[in-house]
């Protein structure tokens, strides 16, 4: 007979932090390299500018920056973190994983460290895993990071992708709910996949560029995802009309607005960070959320719906309470 660890009735996000590279790339700059225009990009994708990492700036660098900020904001010390999860699908090399390096550079002696690849749903997947670990007693305080350097996988002559993708990182510190009167701060994840659509968004191999069949992805995202969003609310026991904010993966402003129209939460503040951040895959949700909190746009304790979706196709979402 084996023993099991004892966990806690719920987990919560304690703090967040975000990082964006300093280099700003405007639509006008891109229009000097491919046939497009500022006006076209703004109307089709919603982006005004995006951030691109320096050539020698790595996914790990960005993860450390965002993770460090989240840790500093959490009030915990590096010694308190016992699990590090980095969601990424654009990391330079598989071995060693990013999480162990991030842990080492932040001075965390982490017993657990792994990278998670669920493309642009990565943060929601990693958050769900972190919550489960805390609830099961596998970990007490988890650093969850979404970090991506999509720019190193972009064909800068392909105007269907080079206008969209960008670089950045967002991180959250997840810990136990210790107040007996408070409920869980991370709701049940609703996740799934459509592997039959593997050919809609992909990077073929280490020497290839990212490819996306935009029209098909657009149609899928604006039809298949709002039921997932509604189910995530239902499982968390939240009515969509109670949501303070809705933070979908910042794929494309038209997709964001298309899904938002259908979830039945007209009062919710909808994240539109893509406008000045571009599409940063698994970094987009924590980056948007950290900025909205910094700007004081979401009250502490208010319910927020997160919804990630991306290449795979994989998707996942959950309701959280804002730290």
């Amino acid at each position, binding site marked *: 007979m084996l023993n099991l660890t004892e966990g806690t009735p719920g987990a919560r996000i304690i703090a967040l932090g975000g990082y964006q590279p300093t280099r700003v790339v405007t639509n006008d700059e891109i229009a000097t390299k491919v046939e497009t225009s500022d006006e076209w990009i703004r*109307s*089709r994708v919603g982006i005004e500018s995006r951030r691109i990492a320096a050539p020698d700036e790595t996914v790990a660098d960005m993860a450390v920056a965002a993770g460090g900020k989240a840790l500093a904001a959490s009030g915990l010390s590096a010694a308190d973190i016992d699990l590090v999860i980095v969601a990424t699908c654009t990391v330079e090399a598989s071995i060693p994983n990013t999480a162990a390096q991030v842990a080492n550079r932040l001075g965390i002696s982490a017993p657990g460290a792994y990278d998670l690849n669920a493309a642009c749903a990565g943060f929601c997947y990693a958050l769900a895993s972190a919550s489960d670990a805390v609830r099961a007693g596998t970990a007490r305080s988890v650093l969850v990071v979404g970090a991506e350097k999509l720019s190193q996988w972009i064909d800068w002559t392909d105007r269907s992708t080079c206008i969209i993708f960008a670089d950045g990182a967002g991180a959250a510190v997840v810990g136990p709910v210790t107040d007996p009167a408070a409920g869980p701060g991370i709701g049940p994840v609703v996740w799934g996949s459509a592997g039959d659509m593997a050919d809609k968004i992909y990077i073929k191999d280490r020497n290839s560029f990212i490819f996306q069949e935009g*029209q*098909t992805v*657009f*149609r899928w995202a*604006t*039809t298949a995802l709002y039921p997932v969003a509604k189910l995530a609310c239902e499982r968390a026991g939240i009515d969509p009309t109670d949501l303070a904010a809705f933070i979908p993966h910042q794929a494309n402003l*038209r997709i964001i607005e*298309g899904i938002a*129209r259908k979830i039945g939460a007209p009062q919710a503040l909808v994240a539109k960070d893509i406008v000045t951040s571009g599409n940063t895959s698994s970094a987009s949700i924590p980056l948007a959320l950290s900025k909205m909190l910094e700007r004081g746009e979401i009250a502490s304790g208010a319910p927020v719906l997160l919804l990630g979706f991306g290449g795979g196709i994989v998707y996942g979402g959950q309701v959280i309470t804002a730290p």
Partner: protein
Amino acid sequence: MAMTDQEILTGLGEIIDEVAGVPADQVTPDKTFVDDLDIDSLSMVEIAVAAQDKFGVEIPDDQLKDLKTVQDVIDYVRRSAVSA
């Protein structure tokens, strides 16, 4: 039960108003989506999806690209509804 062209036009007007912000009374059969109504291909996909919800008629991408005017869509919906 067959829908009249007018019924389809009214439904389409509501959809286009919601998706593209074009007032329903400006949606007349002769208008082209791209030039007259300033509706781009992404909005066309949303309109096709909404039309599927409203009329029960699927408009796949390869058919959608040939529908240039409001009347083209009305004809497509009417034809597809009959054969359903």
